[in-house]
């Protein structure tokens, strides 16, 4: 309903002709017969494969970068929770790093890796690593002693203790870490691709800007919004809920 109202308002503004069509294209109903609409571009883009291909590029980059960030974040988080001296050094540093927007790393990434895929992956990974580190170290640090003590008197130790108690006991923190890290990665990749000139949805956005095709820009914005929402709802929210149900945290 709310979405319908927004669409209606948009259409009206577009039809009033206050702005040129290329700046403010109609969503569904063309202003001139056979003229451009965002909807048409979106469907066309998907069928021609242009938008689909770009989405594929973006998502595969995102997954790789996110995966690297999660592995690094869990490792750093564990070391910070386990060793006091790592906490005093890296732990302190990470809090500072976390406050740097990931795109700030881009000039450095271009110099190190050249303009392209690797630089974008770097931006994505670094954008998500620090928040993953902070969340997972909080998770590991807050494992109640009673679980660890109970497991130790039942014969567990070392990597068995890590695998069967410390990791599962940190799962609620780790999942919220994953969720935030994903959001950071998602923002980072758009910024990276806009500037990175190496394909993907961000690159299409930039293409839309340079050819003054706002119908394309808007189509891609819709795709980004839809994918982001679906993943947050279907993957992370679901994970959070199922853990909450199993643990009886809240229902």
């Amino acid at each position, binding site marked *: 309903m709310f979405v319908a109202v927004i669409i209606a308002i948009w259409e009206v503004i577009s039809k009033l002709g206050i702005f040129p069509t290329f700046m403010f294209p109609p969503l569904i109903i063309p202003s001139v017969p056979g003229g451009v609409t965002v909807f048409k571009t979106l469907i066309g883009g998907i069928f021609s494969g242009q938008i689909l291909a770009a989405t594929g590029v973006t998502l595969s980059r995102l997954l790789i970068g996110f995966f690297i960030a999660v592995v690094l974040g869990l490792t750093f988080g564990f070391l910070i929770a386990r060793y006091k001296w790592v906490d005093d050094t890296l732990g302190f540093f990470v809090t500072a790093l976390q406050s740097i927007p990931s795109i700030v790393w881009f000039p450095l990434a271009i110099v190190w890796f050249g303009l392209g895929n690797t630089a974008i992956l770097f931006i994505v990974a670094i954008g998500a690593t620090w928040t993953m580190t902070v969340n997972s170290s909080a998770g590991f640090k807050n494992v109640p002693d009673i*679980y660890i*003590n109970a497991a*130790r008197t039942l*014969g*567990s130790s070392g990597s068995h203790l890590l695998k069967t108690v410390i990791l599962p006991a940190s799962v609620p923190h780790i999942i919220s870490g994953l969720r935030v890290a994903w959001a950071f990665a998602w923002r980072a990749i758009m910024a990276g691709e806009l500037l990175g000139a190496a394909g993907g949805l961000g690159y299409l956005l930039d293409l839309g800007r340079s050819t003054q095709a706002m119908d394309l820009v808007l189509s891609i914005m819709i795709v980004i919004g839809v994918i982001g929402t679906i993943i947050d709802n279907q993957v992370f929210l679901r994970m959070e809920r199922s853990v909450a149900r*199993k*643990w*009886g945290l809240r229902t």
Partner: protein
Amino acid sequence: MKVSLKKVNKSFQKGKDDTLKVLNDIDFNIEEGEFVSLAGPSGCGKSTILKLIAGLDSPTSGEVLVNGNKVKGPGTDRVVVFQEGGLFPWMTVFENVTYGLLRKKMSKKEAEEKAMDGLRMVHLINFRESYPHELSGGMKQRVAIARALVMDPDVLLMDEPFAALDEQTRLVLHRELQKIWQETGKTILFITHNIREALTLSDRVLLMSTRPGAVKKEFTVQAARPRDPSDSNIVDLERRVMEELEEEMEKVLKEEFGNDYHLEKSHVRSSDHSDMGSHI
């Protein structure tokens, strides 16, 4: 002798160069098959003693022996039941109970059979697929007891296992625990700050004094089992223990209130005197 503590001292680092002495020359033995309670005001060091026996912490000086061997770390010959059970919330009841068994490199089939026996003993066989949060407090403690017993430990250590339960449930569990103890013949060290609970369950009660914690007095309970808390022997003992404890409580209050406590006392006295003066 199953468990033996010899001149055990324990201090914790408190700040940079300040230490807190928690246990002072603790000396006691527990015989094979004996049910012993350790009672005393909270903060007197009961849990610390239990952790030393469990091998979860080590003494500053002195020796802790189990089966004549010095305790070097945790071992499945000494299993603990904690106050809140310490059940793993991400595992079902059944998975909790098989956890230690599977770690023993036992076959899956054997572990599952033992877990079923354990759950049968505490009457929770129908709840094996439930998660801990779906159980009541008393049921959780019974799962924790089953999880410990299936390990077939030499010594069962229990740290205020029933403290968080309501009176009714606690009475039921007292009866169940005594029955389990009689059937299995386990050596049990039971920690509580509830004197009646200690007297109802144990052969022997070690009463602790505080700051630093030390064993102040020992009471042997000679009432017939299963015990009835209104047994004249127990009621009598309870009165004697309470008298001992009053002294301790006074000490605790003095420390907690600091100077205020002295003020209160002297104030009461002086007002007594003035009352007497005006009435004469």
